[in-house]
């Protein structure tokens, strides 16, 4: 009985994570289209939400990696999964507050691994799976994406150089819409899968389904819905950093960046690599800055992001481990409930802080002045 109660709590928390994943990552697909005004902000997030929903059904390879490739499912309990999710959500919300496009995937994986370490020790983590399917792809994927995007950018400008400025802008904005749609689809195939994997992990831990099972249909559907609603609400802060902060983007660059992201993410999804769509999108945007002569990449913004990336796994792991420790000390169902109440309090606090420097569809494209929230002088938000 109490097990079912905890399971329900865990599933709700996981869907909550999926939701934050959606709005944290809207920018990966749509930031450049919004920045070049190929799509209006509202339309962009709507289209992206729908395609995430479709993408979530397209491939299930990554869900399998998360569910059985990273930790020993025999040693995972529901408390571990709940604590891991708490770690993932906390990190997602903190980075969103600062407008840093960090990896939701790493936040989730970090949280789950931290909680597993605290609960069962190092032998419960499949280190080989972690390094070969998460850490190495994390390092390589932005580089590959940047290479592809730089090549694409160079080709696009070369082929279209005889076109008038206006014709080029018009034509590539159309292409950009198509490529942005592909990124949203790809995002569904990779990111929606992660929550499916985690819920499946919880179901395995609770013996509801056998180890090695695929995600049940209701899991796929609810995850697909959660991520698409999150996407629709739009993480305007991150969209702004990606679209305006890194590189000033023109339509051909936007198309090159998005095509590169979509191709790399879809290919990796097929191999079951749970790479970070965020890292790929950022790599592509930097690549498109490198591929066009005279374009300027704001390396200080890129550096700030990279720092956040390095800290994502360990930070989320620490929160996950802490949450597990707390739940373990209190014990049983109450421990999990208290964890989740604290998580809600943290989320409410961060939401309240974000109101102070609002970024929304109306000011998302304002001139980049070095900070996430445009215009009004804001108190030193460290």
């Amino acid at each position, binding site marked *: 009985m109490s097990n079912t109660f905890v399971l329900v709590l865990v599933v709700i928390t996981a869907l909550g994570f999926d939701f934050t994943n959606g709005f944290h990552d809207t920018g990966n697909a749509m930031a450049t289209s919004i920045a070049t005004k190929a799509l209006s902000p509202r339309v962009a997030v709507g289209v992206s939400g729908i395609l995430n929903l479709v993408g979530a059904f397209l491939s299930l390879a990554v869900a399998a990696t998360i569910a059985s490739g990273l930790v020993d499912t025999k040693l995972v309990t529901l408390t571990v999964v709940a604590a891991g999710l708490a770690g993932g959500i906390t990190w997602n919300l903190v980075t969103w507050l600062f407008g840093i496009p960090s990896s939701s995937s790493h936040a989730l994986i970090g949280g789950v691994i931290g909680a597993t370490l605290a609960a069962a020790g190092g032998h419960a983590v499949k280190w*080989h799976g972690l390094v070969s399917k998460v850490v*190495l792809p994390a390092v390589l994927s932005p580089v590959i994406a940047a*290479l592809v995007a730089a*090549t694409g950018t160079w080709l696009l400008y070369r082929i279209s150089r*005889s076109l008038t400025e206006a*014709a080029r802008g018009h034509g590539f904005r159309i292409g950009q819409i198509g490529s942005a749609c592909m990124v949203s689809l790809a995002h569904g*195939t990779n990111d929606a899968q992660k929550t499916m994997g985690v819920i499946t992990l919880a179901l395995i831990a609770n013996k509801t389904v056998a180890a090695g099972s695929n995600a049940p249909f209701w899991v796929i559907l609810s995850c697909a819905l959660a991520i698409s609603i999150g996407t629709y609400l739009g993480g305007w802060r991150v969209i702004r950093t990606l679209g305006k902060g890194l590189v000033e983007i023109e339509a051909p660059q936007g198309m090159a960046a998005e*095509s590169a992201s979509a*191709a790399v993410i879809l290919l990796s999804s097929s191999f079951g690599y749970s790479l970070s769509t965020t890292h790929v999108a950022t790599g592509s945007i930097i690549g498109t800055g490198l591929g066009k002569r005279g374009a300027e990449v704001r390396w200080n913004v890129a550096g700030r992001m990279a720092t956040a990336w390095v800290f994502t796994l360990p930070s989320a792991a620490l929160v996950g481990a802490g949450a597990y420790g707390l739940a373990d000390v209190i014990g049983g169902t109450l421990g999990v409930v208290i964890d989740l109440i604290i998580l809600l309090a943290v989320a409410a606090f961060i939401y309240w802080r974000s109101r102070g420097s609002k970024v929304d569809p109306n000011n998302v494209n304002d001139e980049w002045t070095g900070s996430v929230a445009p215009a009004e002088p804001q108190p030193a938000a460290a």
Partner: protein
Amino acid sequence: MSWINLSALWKIVVFGLLAGAGLPAIFAMGLYSLSRGPRVQTAGGSDSDGLVGGSVVGMAVSALCFLVVLAAIGWGIYEVYKIGHPAPAK
């Protein structure tokens, strides 16, 4: 137990370049062909940005380019779907 799956890596790089840079390049060729023709660089009117040049051959070539891009995307999505739904492991 290799740490890095080289065969997957080179596939991601090569197919990534083909799909991620090659397809947009074909799209760009389509735009280029579309802009050829007598109406090049005329000013005024509602379609004044010179995107459609008006040459029949140009338009046919551009249509072919756009079709190739669409077909490649469709095929790619189908492949991803096929790979992503293996029979449940037993």
